[in-house]
């Protein structure tokens, strides 16, 4: 049923730190790899090795630059985006076939591919562009929060996290339960004021983002250091003064 359940036990999701993401796309690659192998159907690519390739991905990394108002310089940052597993997920309620659903036990938003008719309405309803229709299999694909890893008791405990979280070399993605105020993700999100994307869309995303901190004013500090008097005494101080006079 595509009505939304109340998820009172758990709200599983990702905490993404834009301050330390280096835009390496490791999460994009490992997501595609994990979700194209094993039990899941292929995330298809068309013209993979020719001109104009087009493919399906569940996770993207965008690159932005933001103006630093103090020194008019641009500060680049990288922005990974996958499904936010919204509490009030518009993509679920619009689905006519019942293929889209939100798991009551942990709030993960999933598509049952056996039921999907590929109408694409859920992709229209998602403001974030987190759903893509697979052009070869004709069904809707989206981030599953790697349910086939986190629920998989054949995997060793430390591997029961999403592929993208596991592969991120900087630890910019963490996985956890946002309903539990004592979980690591909840604590960090609270401490560093994690934000929602497009709060005006009233989707109540579970995933939270930590915004890039303003970079230190490197150039200014460097120049100041260069021009300040050296803090030396004795013989070195005499050399310093003598050199200044030259």
């Amino acid at each position, binding site marked *: 049923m595509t009505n939304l359940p109340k998820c009172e036990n758990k709200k599983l999701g990702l905490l993404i730190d834009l301050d330390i993401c280096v835009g390496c796309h490791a999460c994009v690659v490992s997501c595609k790899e994990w979700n194209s192998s094993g039990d899941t159907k292929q995330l298809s690519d068309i013209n993979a090795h020719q001109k104009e390739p*087009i493919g399906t*991905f569940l996770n993207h990394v965008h690159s932005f630059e933001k103006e630093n108002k103090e020194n008019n310089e641009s500060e680049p940052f990288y922005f990974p985006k996958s499904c936010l597993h919204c509490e009030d997920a518009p993509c679920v309620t619009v689905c006519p076939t019942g293929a889209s659903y939100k798991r009551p036990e942990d709030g993960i938003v999933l598509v049952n591919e056996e039921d999907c008719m590929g109408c694409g309405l859920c992709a*229209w309803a998602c403001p974030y562009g987190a759903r893509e229709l697979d052009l070869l299999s004709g069904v809707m694909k989206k981030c599953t929060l790697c349910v086939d890893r986190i629920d998989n008791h054949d995997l060793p405990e430390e591997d029961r996290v999403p592929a993208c979280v596991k592969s991120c070399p900087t630890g910019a993605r963490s996985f956890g339960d946002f309903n539990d105020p004592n979980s690591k993700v909840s604590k960090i999100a609270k401490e560093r004021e994690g934000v929602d994307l497009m709060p005006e*869309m009233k989707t109540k995303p579970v995933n939270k983002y930590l915004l890039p901190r303003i970079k230190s004013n490197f150039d200014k500090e460097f120049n100041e250091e260069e021009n300040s008097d050296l803090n030396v005494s004795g013989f070195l101080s005499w050399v310093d003064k003598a050199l200044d006079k030259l």
Partner: protein
Amino acid sequence: MHPAPSIILFTILSGFGFGVIAWVGFLQYFSLISSLEVIAFSILGGFLAVIGLISSTFHLANKINAIKSFSQWRSSWLSREAVASIVSLLLVFINLIIVYFGKNTVPLIGIIASLFSIVTVFTTSMIYAQLRSVPSWNTLLTPFIFILAALVGAAILLRPDYALYGLAVLLVIQFLFWLYRDQTEKNMKTNISTALGFTEESSIRSFDKAHTNQNYLLNEMVYKIGRKHSRRLRYLSVLFSIFIPVSIMLLVRFDTYVVGAIVSVIHLLGMYFSRWLFFAEARHAVSFYYDRS
């Protein structure tokens, strides 16, 4: 949004077809048309509605599951539309049989079919109007213009005397809709800053999109051509859908359905432009992630 011809044709043809059904039931109830006309126009309306519905299945990537779309009417407008259109068509069919066997004395089924067909057009329009992700659709003007267009279009064929007033109202609503669209576009609550979670508006631009080539999101939801030709297409649209039909109506006497049919086709051509713009001009929130300005 990508203006897929299959969806545009579907909304126009099924809208017109259900409009015809709505008028037939109404006119039949007040004994304003003959049994023969009821039969002929019920078949025409039903036929167009079915053609429209078939064309809407062209954009389904996995048609085999289309039958499952009747199941989620509790939450989904698309599912409600599927159910409502089948109910209307069934009612039309029952009415047709009753009239065919000469029992036009109980025109109740006809008027129920007529109400259901308006409900069907309403459900179609709500598929778009419900989407918060496309702010310029997310207004009551959307169902209003869909229902009005369906009724006015069919009136050109069946009751040209009413259609004249209808077209005048349609002109006003059409301009209101475009005004609303331009205003929402200008004052969008969503922008690149909110899309990335910043609380204050900051100057941000994308310097590299997330993928080197086109993808489903760009093809489907980030359509740029619509805005470029917007003005010209708006003029063309009202010229064909409203001004030419009105001029012909004022100059020529409608004593046969042939003139009505020709004018309806001209009107629908204009509506095609209008519907094309409805999609092509609508800005989806995801486009902000690709904002380079």
